């Protein structure tokens, strides 16, 4: 249309390959077609996306659904709403050196785990321990900034690290390690913590005042997702266009990793990209409420709205690595 609506959109972190869909949508005019002028800013963390939106500084962003659950528990009228789930699988994982002597999760007892404070991985460890019948008190946690976890792990200061696999995997690569050969990964999803994770969220204000815009935003992102699932190189081109400082090789691998490990799943194939299953969402909410000792368990409808999703047929994502 003639009148473009400006949307302030925050990423979950600095420019990464896994954000390529947004850049692709912008570069190829998908947003424009929907009458949107989307301004993309880099973020401070996928949890901070929620704060940024709640404060009104941003209209939409790419962030963690679990942070929405936390905030919706106390401030249901302010918390943003997820409208397009991208990472169907949780990236939360524990990584350890194969030489560390940790072979099963039981071996975490008596070892020191490095965690970045407040990240879901660190915060959900007690739930993880409880669900898997570990003695939580025996697991020591050492706090550190996320970018110190891998160096400290390599150096041997910690025995394992509580990480996001999509971040840590490439951090290890960048630290000249072989994350597949020399490291062992324990994914939370495999141990009873079947959570959702990052997706597109919008502010309640935007939702209420301009639902058409939200629908347009979701449509554009969906279109881009499907496009770069077929052609990651095109996605990377858009990413470089946005930020010429990124390491293309690594970020492309990261993009592919996101499809491989986080987006494409049996569930996604069943319900299409962007949607969630309400019962799984309810379970996930239960886990978060337990892990964070929240006062109130929000309903799945407070967290996720599928109102704006394009029809199922348009959300058929086929990933082919290239």
């Amino acid at each position, binding site marked *: 249309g003639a009148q473009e609506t400006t949307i302030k959109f925050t990423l979950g972190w600095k420019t990464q390959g896994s954000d390529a869909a947004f850049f692709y949508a912008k570069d190829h005019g998908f947003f424009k077609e929907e009458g949107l002028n989307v301004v993309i800013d880099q973020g401070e963390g996928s949890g901070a996306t929620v704060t940024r939106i709640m404060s009104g500084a941003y209209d939409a962003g790419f962030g963690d659904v679990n942070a929405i659950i936390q905030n919706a528990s106390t401030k249901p009228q302010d918390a943003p709403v997820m409208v397009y789930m991208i990472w169907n699988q949780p990236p939360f994982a524990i990584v350890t050196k194969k030489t560390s002597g940790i072979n099963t999760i039981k071996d975490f007892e008596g070892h020191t785990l490095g965690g970045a404070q407040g990240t879901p991985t660190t915060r959900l460890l007690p739930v993880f321990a409880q669900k898997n019948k570990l003695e939580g008190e025996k697991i020591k946690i*050492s706090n550190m900034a996320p970018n110190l976890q891998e160096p400290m792990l390599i150096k041997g200061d910690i025995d394992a690290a509580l990480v996001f696999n999509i971040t840590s995997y490439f951090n290890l690569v960048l630290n000249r390690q072989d994350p597949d050969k020399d490291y062992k990964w324990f994914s939370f999803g495999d141990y009873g913590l079947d959570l959702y994770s990052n997706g597109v969220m919008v502010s309640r204000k935007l939702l209420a005042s301009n639902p058409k815009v939200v629908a347009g935003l979701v449509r554009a992102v969906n279109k881009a997702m499907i496009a770069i699932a077929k052609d990651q190189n095109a996605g990377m081109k858009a990413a470089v266009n946005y930020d010429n400082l990124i390491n293309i090789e690594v970020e492309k691998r990261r993009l592919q990793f996101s499809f491989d490990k986080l987006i494409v799943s049996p569930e996604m194939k069943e319900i299409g990209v962007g949607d969630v299953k309400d019962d799984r969402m309810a379970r996930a909410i239960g886990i978060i409420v337990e892990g964070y000792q929240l006062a109130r368990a929000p309903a799945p409808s407070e967290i996720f709205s599928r109102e704006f999703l394009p029809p199922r047929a348009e959300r058929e994502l086929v990933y082919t690595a290239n």
Partner: protein
Amino acid sequence: MPDLDYRQKVWSAALIMLFFVAWELFCLVTGMSDLVLPRPSQVFVTLFEKFPILWPHILQTLATTMIGFVLGVGLGVVLGAVIGVSKTAYDTAYPLLVGFSSIPKVAVVPIFVLWFGSGTVPAVLTALSICFFPIVVNIATGLATTEPELEDVLKALGASKFDILWNVGLPRTMPFFFASLKVAISYAFVGAVLSETVASNRGIGNVMMTASSNFNVPLVFAGLFVLAGLGVALYVIFSVIEGRITGWATRKSDVIAT
């Protein structure tokens, strides 16, 4: 004029109160979300409730800060004296120090952590490295601008350079040394907390980091208030010492009070 002094103090305290009241009103009037800027009353309540939990963290931060600060002051005085006395040191060390100070310490903390492990040592080092520069600058400037007439008094007696430094240079620099302490102590807190947020299991920085990831903004602000309070407490202590040592330099106010 003791009653004037007293009224002065009351007046100042009232103005400080006013600041908090204004803040409170500002938040109430603009309907500011407490995720952005909590009201001081909320912060004080949180502080009061969480105080038993905060206490060991406060002690930890205070201890690391003080160690770093004391070491930083020592280093600052020595470096400042060297730079103030020697032209070569001035030309060499100043650019290096300015360069070093222009580097955000947050970039240096990880190096400290990797070398010395997480916890107290990097916090002390960060506090030290962030707080010594203002001291260097003021000591060096004080020494460089000491009136040669004052030094001549000792030079004519055949005093050594060290004698002159000790008896003229440093005493004359005291007012500005204390000025720089005010900057240094507050930056020492910043440094220690910074390091704690990067890698530590204890300390205010750690608390604030946890609180902020829990979206518990009032607790974050409680941490900030604790830091501010500690800074002010130390400032008050130094002020008392300063009053005794550098009274000669502020005799102006004496004369007016007569």
